[in-house]
């Protein structure tokens, strides 16, 4: 920039420009969708005969009211962010990975197995080994659907969903069978050795180092998607696979590798759950984080840093929902409804454009007559 153009050499930027920069259409439509969904949610809560404002206050208190609730929200945000960034990478390549749930389970069980098997290793070796195992296992599990897509043209959407069911049944077998904690009637493995636990990062709370992993992963993912050739290829294939093929990009490889990377991150989320809050593998380690991650990815506009923010919001909603249920008796499922309404409104934002176009056209007609 030796010769600044008149545009960039302008001494000051007006406040309006900054505002435009911050409230770009993406962010505006995201916030608008959240508000609309909360309004519909208020209607559902009123159906239950509860004052929506009281319910929302309980929800917010439960989510972000004090240090402990903030920590709990961030604990839930961690797997949502990791799996959500995974979903983002796949969606960016135009691959519909609906299988984060299964990949999370497989990653969690595989890393727990390694953690128990090599219990005498020191933490600085064991934890990286468990992380690698989780990513490998999740990636390979997703790779099944990836190979079937690339080789046989089979829908990865249906196959990843089917693999979710298979993964949860497989884990159920393992934690009730070969990997069950000796002497325990519960569907869980033995406890991981203490050096395999993720350290707590906030005093007097359960918040663990998984959050730091999630933040690092979101930064790496943003860099990879926008600053590397592979990331560029992923975005090109997602936009137009035929043009990508014509430009010499190995489309099949990009589809497969994006799906496997996606599975690897979901697997890492599984590791975080096993080594973080649980300290072992349990039969129902995820209450549907893999599915919520899809919405988190869409709400984050398929942008890793946006996904991180969306995950924190959704983590808060999930934690606040249980507080709300016990405080004012509104079923926590109403929050699930709000979460998915947000995304439907986001997808449906084209409706506003249509209405505007129509109004515009009518105005023109009026002017003509």
């Amino acid at each position, binding site marked *: 920039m030796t010769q600044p153009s008149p545009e960039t050499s302008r001494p000051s930027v007006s406040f309006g420009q900054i505002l435009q920069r911050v409230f770009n259409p993406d962010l505006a439509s995201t916030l608008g969708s959240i508000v609309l969904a909360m309004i519909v949610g208020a209607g559902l809560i009123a159906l239950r005969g509860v004052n929506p404002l009281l319910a929302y206050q309980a929800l917010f208190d439960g989510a972000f009211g004090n240090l402990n609730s903030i920590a709990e929200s961030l604990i839930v945000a961690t797997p949502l962010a990791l799996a959500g960034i995974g979903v983002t990478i796949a969606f960016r390549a135009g691959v519909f990975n609906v299988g984060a749930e299964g990949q999370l389970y497989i990653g969690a069980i595989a890393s727990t197995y390694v953690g128990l098997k090599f219990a005498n290793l020191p933490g600085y070796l064991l934890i990286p080994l468990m992380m690698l195992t989780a990513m490998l296992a999740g990636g390979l599990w997703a790779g099944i659907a990836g190979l079937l897509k690339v080789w046989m043209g089979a829908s990865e959407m249906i196959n990843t969903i089917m693999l979710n069911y298979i993964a949860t049944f497989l884990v159920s077998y393992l934690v009730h069978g070969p990997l069950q904690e000796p002497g325990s009637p519960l569907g869980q493995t033995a406890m991981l050795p203490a050096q395999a636990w993720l350290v707590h990062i906030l005093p007097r709370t359960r918040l663990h180092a998984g959050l730091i992993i999630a933040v690092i992963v979101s930064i790496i993912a943003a860099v990879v998607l926008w600053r590397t050739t592979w990331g560029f290829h992923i975005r090109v294939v997602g936009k137009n696979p035929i043009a990508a093929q014509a430009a010499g990009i190995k489309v099949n490889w990009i589809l497969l590798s994006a799906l496997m990377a996606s599975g690897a991150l979901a697997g890492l989320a599984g590791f975080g759950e096993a080594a973080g809050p649980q300290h072992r593998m349990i039969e129902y380690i995820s209450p549907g984080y893999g599915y919520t991650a899809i919405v988190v990815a869409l709400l984050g506009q398929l942008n890793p840093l946006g996904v991180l923010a969306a995950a924190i919001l959704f983590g808060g909603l999930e934690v606040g929902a249980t507080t709300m249920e016990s405080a004012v008796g509104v079923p926590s499922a109403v929050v*699930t409804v709000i979460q998915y309404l947000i995304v439907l409104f986001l997808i449906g934002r084209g409706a506003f454009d249509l209405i505007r176009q129509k109004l515009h056209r009518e105005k023109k007609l009026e002017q003509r007559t």
Partner: protein
Amino acid sequence: MNDILSFLTSPVVSGFFSASMRLAAPILLAALGGIYNERAGVLNIGMEGMMLMGSLIGFTIGHITGSLWLGVLAAALTGVLLGLILGFFTITLDANQVVAGISINLLCVGLASFLYRLFYGLGLQPRGSDYGIWNIPGLSQIPVIGPMFFQQSPLVYLTYLIIAVSFIVVFRSSWGLAIIATGENPAAAETLGVNVVRTRYISMVISGALCGIGGAFLSLVATSVFLDNMTAGRGYIALAILLLGRRNPLGLLAAALMFGAADALQLRTQLLNIGIPFQFMLMLPYLLTIVVLSFFVRRTDNPAALGVHFKQGGGES
């Protein structure tokens, strides 16, 4: 010969055949709906959610009124509403058809769970009435075929009727031709006077209604209870059956029966305790879906404009 016949008519085996049809019916109904929207060129990935909501609303109305048919009607209307919503997203707004469908499904999981607690609280699970089976005189006495096809719930006979009607509508009526034209080449169909957008909306309405009825079958006939997430992926399996049966009503019947048989087999072997952990038996229908989808489906059968948005009067966008 006699041995074979007595084996096939033994209670265990005829029970298996009968269960195969009963377990096939819900996915068959949803897949039959899929014929319309996919042949018209729109994807309905929201089948799972439509089935689940149909299952809840059908069960509730059946529970209140004690009438199977009012329950079925309510379920169908629920499906229609969801079909119109998804249609608005995909046909009018040109949203990504897969993303919109998945979002509808996930929304319905939460909505069904919320509404169930709203209707029934957290107390005992209500049981629906048993609406019984109808034996078709004469036909139900035929060995093997009788118990399988003609000693069933009236809803199964409705399914046969829908198969026959769908076959005639899609392959023998001018409106069926309009649907197929809309899915293959919407621009050409429009020049011939077919209203593409309306045809696609109607196809989504039919699809939603049949998904709703399929879901109601689960809660009204198959189990007499409603459970959270009781469709358990059947809406997605229906999508696979649709491909396997090549969007032909009779092909779907055969494909759905295969899945019904796999489901019946896993239920029976769980009870028999043959040494295979039950979790592996539970995987069977899902594994079968993956195998079928990957190795027995021809890609070239897809309607040319399937999943492609159409802008009225302006050619394809």
